[in-house]
């Protein structure tokens, strides 16, 4: 006997293109809901990794014109060495992570013993047409078992061949507590097709970095 299968119009709800089937707010009927505009692309879990990289077209990574904005979320990135800065770099047409960047950096910090608290610009952590790694924390991360850094980075329109590529980062570090604000642009009209995270020295002992695409349609 042939198996009878349900079709799109088998359910007691009006189909909406591109939406999913859900229960309504009273859980007594069906409704339709749009898919989330923020789409998980890739999760990388560090394990004594010298770098974590996201390269368009490699290992299921999408980092091209598919999305106008990309969001990286780093959770509990823990260094093997004691006190290195967490950093990011971008590649723009070659395999090297050396895009030219101009950036700002400022941070708030507060010590656990309440002895120091401040908000200040840090000119040692910004770049002026630099090609080196961009620090995205201001005080280094110690490697105590419970110490790490978390935060997010937004990269705008990386595939543009017209505009420079803006990025905005905010992170929360540990020991001291720090709230770090980094922003700037890759001063290139070549597409950015790879992003690399690392610690200033040693490995990324543990932690996860997720890449999301934010859809605009």
């Amino acid at each position, binding site marked *: 006997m042939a198996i009878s299968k349900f079709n799109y119009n088998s359910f007691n709800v009006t189909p909406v293109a591109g939406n999913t089937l*859900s229960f309504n*707010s*009273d859980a007594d009927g*069906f409704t339709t809901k749009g898919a989330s*505009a923020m789409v998980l692309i890739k999760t990388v879990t560090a394990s004594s990794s010298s770098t974590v990289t996201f390269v368009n077209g490699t290992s299921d990574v999408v980092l091209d014109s598919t999305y106008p904005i990309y969001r990286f979320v780093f959770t509990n990135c823990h260094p093997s060495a004691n006190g290195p800065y967490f950093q990011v770099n971008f590649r723009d047409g070659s395999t090297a992570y050396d895009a030219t960047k101009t950036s700002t950096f400022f941070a708030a910090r507060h010590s656990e013993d309440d002895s120091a608290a401040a908000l200040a610009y840090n000119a040692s952590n910004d770049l002026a047409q630099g090609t080196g790694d961009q620090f995205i924390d201001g005080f280094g991360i110690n490697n105590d078992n419970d110490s790490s850094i978390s935060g997010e980075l937004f990269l705008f329109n990386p595939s543009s061949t017209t505009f420079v590529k803006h990025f905005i980062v905010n992170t929360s570090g540990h020991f001291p507590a720090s709230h770090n604000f980094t*922003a700037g642009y890759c001063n290139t009209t070549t597409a950015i097709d790879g992003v690399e995270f690392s610690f200033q020295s040693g490995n990324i002992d543990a932690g996860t970095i997720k890449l999301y695409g934010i859809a*605009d349609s």
Partner: protein
Amino acid sequence: MALSKLNFNSLNLTPVAGKGIGFDSGADDLEASFSSGSMTFIKKLTASSDGTLSFVNGASDVVLDSTYKEYLFTFNNMHPATDSVNFYVNFSIDGGSNYNVTKTTTWFYAYHDEADSTTSLEYNAGLDLAQGTGNQPIMENIGNDNDQSGSGFMSLYNPSSTTFVKHFTAITQDIIHANYTENAFIAGYCNTTSAINAVQFVMESGNIDAGTITLYGIN
């Protein structure tokens, strides 16, 4: 014969309010744990030598009402026709007839030039508002070189409230005309208990030559 359709209780799973239906981790059963659409695309406007870009509730598929508690606007490569102009936002309580809601706001920013001669983190009292009805800058002095622009995002909280003032926060990043990078933080409130039902973006002078603004609803 009446068409028989499946109802919410026709499936072999326990209904959960607001949850989507998906396959379980073993791909051998259904479950109601799928959270669909916590960030929902609403509308994208692409500038092409436009004087203004406006999002008006109920017009052109725009939703800006009680459907969502938070609305997120993203700005991608906003490029002015005129060099060194601010990018503004304003709000309306009358469906876009007037963009003149009273606002009190803060503005601070960090900036740094490509020549590495200047860095700063400071409050800018010239760009905030104190019960002002005019446009609120959310990017400053954007350059109009071909590769210059500004990007960022702005959240508008509970615009349909008729109880509270309407808070908004914005973080933007732009390259200003003299080749500075500028990271700006803007926040404040529309000091009204009327519902905000339209939002408009405009350059200080000249057109919005290019760029996209996308509106999302956040559950």
